[in-house]
């Protein structure tokens, strides 16, 4: 019997990175942020407030192991060890499970701070599209949160919803965005409230002869509508930026832009690391404040 390859279509690519402009660090302050999300875990290491290295990987069944795995992978080519890191902040839903952290901060605070760094001080509205929740966050020019709203009750509008459709249509989750534009005209959206209903609608559409591309367009459209409702309830103030894994899916991002008639700022870094980056920045500020006090 021929062996059938079981492709895990939902699997996104894990990655790590080291700042090529800082080949050998001899600075004064190393801080780290570890964001344990429901689906992914990131560790960001900052050297005097400059991103030095990071990793982005899946959260395993054991959160402390995920935290250790992420920080080790981030440190891999840096020559650093845990002892070199002055201060670590844990964030995300698993933030209490970072064994080497000095403090925990909520992911909403960290995402706003991280987005402020990635996109600059003009960002006022951040849409964080995570694996199992979706948040609309307002912040000021310093990246401090002024208001937020979240959906964590329903998978519609989250990465988990996208994974379900990737598996159903046997399309790699990273290809969905591009494919969803390969249609002659934009089809009507499928159910935007329930992933389960959207899934049965998608099955019916496939049987009625729709192409995968057309179904993906209808699905990305529905997901965009879903998060736009959250954004509208929270109020939109420009500039606008999207963070989290779905920010990499242009099928959803462009549809949000077109429904709202605005443009999201172009990311300059991996959108999934915003939370961990914010945590590392907050850590740096805390250490500096403490040192300033001691020197008085």
């Amino acid at each position, binding site marked *: 019997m021929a062996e059938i390859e079981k492709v895990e279509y939902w699997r996104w690519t894990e990655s790590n990175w080291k700042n090529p402009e800082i080949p050998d660090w001899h600075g004064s302050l190393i801080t780290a942020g570890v964001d344990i999300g429901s689906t992914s875990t990131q560790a960001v290491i900052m050297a005097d407030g400059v991103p030095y290295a990071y990793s982005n990987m899946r959260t395993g069944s054991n959160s402390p192991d995920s935290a250790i795995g992420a920080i080790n992978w981030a440190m891999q080519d840096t020559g650093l060890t845990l002892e070199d890191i002055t201060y670590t902040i844990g964030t995300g839903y698993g933030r209490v499970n970072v064994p080497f952290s000095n403090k925990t901060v909520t992911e909403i605070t960290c995402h706003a701070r991280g987005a402020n760094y990635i996109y600059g001080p003009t960002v006022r509205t951040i849409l964080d599209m995570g694996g199992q929740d979706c948040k609309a966050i307002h912040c000021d020019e310093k990246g401090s949160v002024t208001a937020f709203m979240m959906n964590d009750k329903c*998978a519609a509008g989250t990465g988990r919803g996208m994974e379900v459709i990737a598996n159903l249509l046997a399309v790699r989750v990273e290809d969905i965005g591009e494919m969803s534009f390969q249609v002659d005209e934009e089809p009507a959206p499928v159910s935007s409230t*329930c*992933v389960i209903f959207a899934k049965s609608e998608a099955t019916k559409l496939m049987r009625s002869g729709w192409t995968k591309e057309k179904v993906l367009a209808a699905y990305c459209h529905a997901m965009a509508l879903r998060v736009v409702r959250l954004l509208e309830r929270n109020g939109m103030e420009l500039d606008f930026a999207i963070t989290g894994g779905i920010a990499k899916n242009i099928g959803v991002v462009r549809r949000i832009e077109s429904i709202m008639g605005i443009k999201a700022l172009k990311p300059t870094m991996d959108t999934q690391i915003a939370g961990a980056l914010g945590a590392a920045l907050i850590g740096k500020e805390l250490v500096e404040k403490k040192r300033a006090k001691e020197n008085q």
Partner: protein
Amino acid sequence: MITAGIDCGSQNTKGVIIKDGKVVAMALLPTEFDADLAAQKAYEIALEKVGVKKEDVSRLAITGVGREIVKWGDTEINEVGAAARGAKFVLPETDTVIDMGADSCRVIRMNEDGSVMKYEVNDKCASGAGTFIEAMARALQVKTEEMGDFSLRHTKELATNAQCVVFAESEVISLIHAKETREDIAYGVHMGIANRIASMIRRVGLTDHFTMIGGPAYNKGLVSCMSKVFGREIVTPENNQFISAIGAAIFAAENQ
């Protein structure tokens, strides 16, 4: 007088024939992808069972989500009206109907004369519908029909948190990994649904005579959890999947 009702649901299509105020034939089959064909078949099977010809049927009423596709009935009635009429017909003391289908749930409060006072519908989210139980049964590797018995054998009051089917699947898998028994998890799943239905009940007001209809009403574990949450007995009529089709047939007789 002979009338007929077809309830074309998202998962199953039901046909019922009523003769002189008595249900004489019932047929059920999966709706699948062609609602129109399913309705024709359900109607024909029901007619055949009792040896009645189409010409002998005075009026045929269509209900269910498929009524937008099945257009050859003499009249149509919405799901709320059909459920209320059917429940009142089989259990006259009913004052609140819980109608749970595959993809939706309705709670209907009735006046004494059987007219609808107010109702709540959840058809936007699968969290309170039969699909939810099916998905959890799959995660537990238990047949959907066995979920009730598993739940009744529970030994502790396990609580589940997830409302969304997608998140609940992951939660059930985590609970299996945490060595919780399938019996306790099934109970937790049913309690979760019962609590969600309870919030719909609160909006229409709590009454004394609950009747539950629709496929999930066969699930004794779910019904027992609902009784526990509401503090009321939940009566489930025989043939509870056919009650809305019966209601449609009664409606057909009304409007002669």
